[in-house]
């Protein structure tokens, strides 16, 4: 519907002959707008768009579905969400970088407080102390968990944290190569390659042995003075515990940095921290700690390193200070590393990160506390072990790797996985990840994850269905 003055249909042109779309998120009515236009000194809103060339002005309404009322929106989106399986309905044994742990009820209540989730980045510290102190606490918890000296306020996710760690290593030693284990999450490796592809940094991969860990002998032969960093995952993609002490040594022998990625940080409740083995940068995925699966995002990366590398770190940092009257307070600090100050010379381009997810992680870790993180980790270890032993005893199945594992393990099945997974689905279960998807040499192998959330009954049921198919 066009009018003579403007192009397309302004909501202000319409009067009672054409009902105005009153939108509950837009307080100002047509009458309010007319009053403001008068103050501005223009006859119509069209004047305010007069500098846009007429030839490109939209001549029609946007072709979008008609607006839904709140009730209609709920009905439509509920129907859409019902087309998804989810872990409350199906018992899922999927891990592989996204973990189903129990999230205490108070996490959601607290992150749903308006003052947390509708707040902006704390650039004005006087009125953002809540966000800033929470970030300071998050940084502290990450340092404690990884046993590193300094941590930032969050990255986008585990995969980009690995990429940024590699870039930081390059900034520090300017060497042209990164060596990464193929036992690191395939998608993390893909992201790393995309990030360094055009920056003159090469990525070389080192494989894993039949034990399930990175091949130390091959790695040692590959690491040299061109190596910027050696990157491994702990526990690795197959759930195996890597020999961090040996890997750390062989990286440092040649002056390379040792980067450890932790995709399942609950493991650090019972496993020694990478910092204890001389890691230079520890990164990882915080989703397991207080964030829902959300079909892959939003998640939250963590990034921790040595104090001496502080000024080369990417990401935001909250630091402690005092105000005019000597009160303790917190501010974003060392911003000269960042894009809004250093622009093209910044350590990273990161601006918006994953603050609310980091807050969920902070609340989760405070809720678990010193005892809880250990107890949850132990339950993961025990339940996964129980499942692993039971499946390992099944006729036709065998455990592929004999390294110690945390809460994930690899099983080779006697039949094509499509049939096994189909049988599981019929029993309201989602099986593990088909590793053949990423590793051609691991055809018919399943990566299974068992957490504290799985009951003995559910594990027994899994074993039962696998038995029937085996």
């Amino acid at each position, binding site marked *: 519907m066009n009018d003579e003055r403007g192009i397309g249909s*302004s*909501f202000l042109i319409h009067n009672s002959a054409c009902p105005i*779309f009153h939108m509950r*998120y*837009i307080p100002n009515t047509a009458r309010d*707008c007319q009053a403001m236009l008068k103050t*501005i000194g223009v006859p119509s809103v069209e004047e*305010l*768009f007069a500098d846009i*060339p007429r030839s490109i002005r*939209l001549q029609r309404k946007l072709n*979008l*579905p008609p*607006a*839904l009322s*709140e009730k209609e*929106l709920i009905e439509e*989106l509920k129907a*859409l*969400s019902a*087309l998804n399986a989810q872990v409350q309905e199906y018992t899922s044994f999927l891990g592989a970088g996204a973990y189903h742990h129990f999230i205490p009820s*108070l996490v959601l209540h607290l992150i749903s*407080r308006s003052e947390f*989730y509708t707040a*902006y980045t704390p650039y*004005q510290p*006087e009125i953002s*102390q809540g*966000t800033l102190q*929470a970030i*300071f606490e998050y940084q*502290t918890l990450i340092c*404690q*968990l990884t046993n590193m000296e300094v941590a930032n306020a969050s990255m986008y996710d585990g995969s*980009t944290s690995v990429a940024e760690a590699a870039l930081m290593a390059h900034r520090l030693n300017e060497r042209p190569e990164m060596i990464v284990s193929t036992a690191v999450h395939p998608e993390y490796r*893909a992201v790393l390659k995309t990030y360094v592809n055009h*920056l003159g940094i090469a990525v070389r991969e080192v494989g894993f042995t039949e034990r399930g860990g990175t091949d130390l002998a091959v790695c040692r032969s590959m690491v040299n003075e061109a190596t910027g960093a050696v990157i491994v995952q702990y526990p690795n993609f197959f759930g195996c515990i890597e020999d961090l002490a040996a890997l750390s040594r062989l990286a440092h022998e040649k002056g390379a940095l040792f980067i450890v990625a932790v995709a399942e940080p609950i493991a650090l*409740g019972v*496993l020694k921290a990478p910092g204890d083995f001389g890691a230079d940068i520890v990164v990882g995925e915080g989703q397991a700690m207080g964030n*829902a699966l959300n079909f892959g*995002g939003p998640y939250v990366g963590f990034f921790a390193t040595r104090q001496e590398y502080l000024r080369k770190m990417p990401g935001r940092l909250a*630091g*402690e200070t005092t*105000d005019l009257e000597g009160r303790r307070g917190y501010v974003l*600090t060392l911003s000269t590393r960042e*894009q*809004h100050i250093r622009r093209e010379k910044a350590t990273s*381009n*990161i*601006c918006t990160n994953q*603050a*609310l997810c980091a807050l969920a992680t902070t609340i989760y870790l405070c809720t678990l*506390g010193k005892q809880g993180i250990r107890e949850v980790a132990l339950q993961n270890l*025990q*339940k996964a072990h*129980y499942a692993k032993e039971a499946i390992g005893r099944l006729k036709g199945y065998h455990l592929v790797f004999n390294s*110690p594992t945390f809460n994930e393990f690899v099983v080779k099945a006697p039949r094509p996985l499509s049939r096994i997974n189909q049988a599981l*689905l019929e029993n309201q279960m989602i099986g593990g990840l088909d590793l053949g998807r990423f590793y051609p040499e691991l055809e018919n192998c399943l990566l299974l994850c068992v957490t504290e959330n799985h*009951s003995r009954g559910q*594990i027994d049921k899994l074993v039962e269905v696998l038995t029937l198919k085996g």
Partner: protein
Amino acid sequence: MKKAVGTQGLVYNEDLIFEKSVEGRKAYSLPALDVPEADIQRLVPEEYLREEVSGFPEVSEVEVVRHFVRLSQWNYAIDVGFYPLGSCTMKYNPKINEDIARLPGFAHAHPYQPEALSQGAIRLMYELEKCLCEISGMDRVSLQPAAGAHGELTGLMMIRAYLTAQGNPRKKVIIPDSAHGTNPASSTLCGYEVISLKSNDRGCIDPQALRENMNREVAAIMLTNPNTLGLFEENILEIARIVHDQGGLVYCDGANLNALLGIVRPGDMGIDVLHFNLHKTFSTPHGGGGPGSGPVGVKSHLAPFMPIPTPECRLEAEDSGQGAGPSPAPGPRPYYYLDYNRPQSIGKVRAFYGNFGMMVRAYSYIRSLGAEGLRQVSETAVINANYILSRLRDVYHVPYDRHCKHECVLSDKFQLKNDVKTLDIAKRLMDYGFHPPTIYFPLIVPGALMIEPTETESKETLDEFIQAMRAIAREAQEEPETVRSAPHLPKVRRLDETMAARKPKLRWEKGEEKNAR
């Protein structure tokens, strides 16, 4: 006189959670272990066994709740009041979108669960992409980037891949001096050298200056439209032509899309690549610094380079065993899937598919507004910004004296005479109950104050803000020390940022004294 929006009130001190820790307290609940307990020494080699996570707090559930509730009360937020941050588009975050994002089918879906059981999620992504294409005039949109800066990097990588396929990735990117800092930072991350282009005296890109700098070594121009002064790049068509004539591409930072919805589309202006900020234009909450989402739209010649996977749809014959749930009508049904088979793709910019939870919120927002609603958003946003401009122009200096779009830029030029600076004005606004506008950006306006009200503010709120700004202008003349020593009312006053940087203290350490308040 009408009382100010901001007032005094009781807030609570709250130590660090570590300082509240008491051995033996717990806040969690876990069922007893229901499988036989194996000897842990058999499961994990001794050199890997951890005794405890030293320093983790031990507190009760009550204390956890009080701790974070008290912390939250120290924060300003959109739900508390007006947030006129330029280029941030701090609009209201609809509550219904939070509920929808938390529907179990969305919140509890694993990214690797079978495709046939993820039809709702993939379809939502597919439809969101279609909506964003229609709104922007782009041909395809990747939903994978986690934030605007991430979208910029992804977009530049696609530009590089496209030019490489043509034979030469080129070496440089032209960026106007008014650009957001992420623009040059992203360019560097993508291996490009930045050429900064001086804006003309109208605050815009000067076509002549561009012509002089544009050549076959330049991969792209990265611009923002409307620009960071809130002004529409009036020569956009000529700018696009100059760049395209030399085989370069035009990247548009879509942070300011809130001014253009339903009015004009970047895709119709000669833009080749555009990123969106779902946490700006499309109402997803800022969360204190994320999560956001930065989808990047492209014209079809760049589509082959998009990150994998992309959400797609094909028609499946009836009873194929797949498809989206039971169907009442016979005939082929749409089946949504993730396409990894894109040989020219730049790869992945993050694991999995993107910030899906934020896509749900943005999609719900678009479905709540429809075409008329979105147009109303932009018209009202632009009227609101011009209203503020018209009512403050007599007391604050306006560097570019014409109608703005959704945001306007003032400066502290008049107030400097009394030694009152933009920083002081910003801090004094807090005492009046407002979050300050963006300050000292864009860099080309000394002492810039960038004000973006958005469409979700009422005329009354705008009047209150205007009143506060006018009062501060008066104070700057009559009692400047009040402004210079602000803020007075928040929980803390001005903080020593110099010391924080000089002697960084970035974590709590055991054995510290509980600090003085």
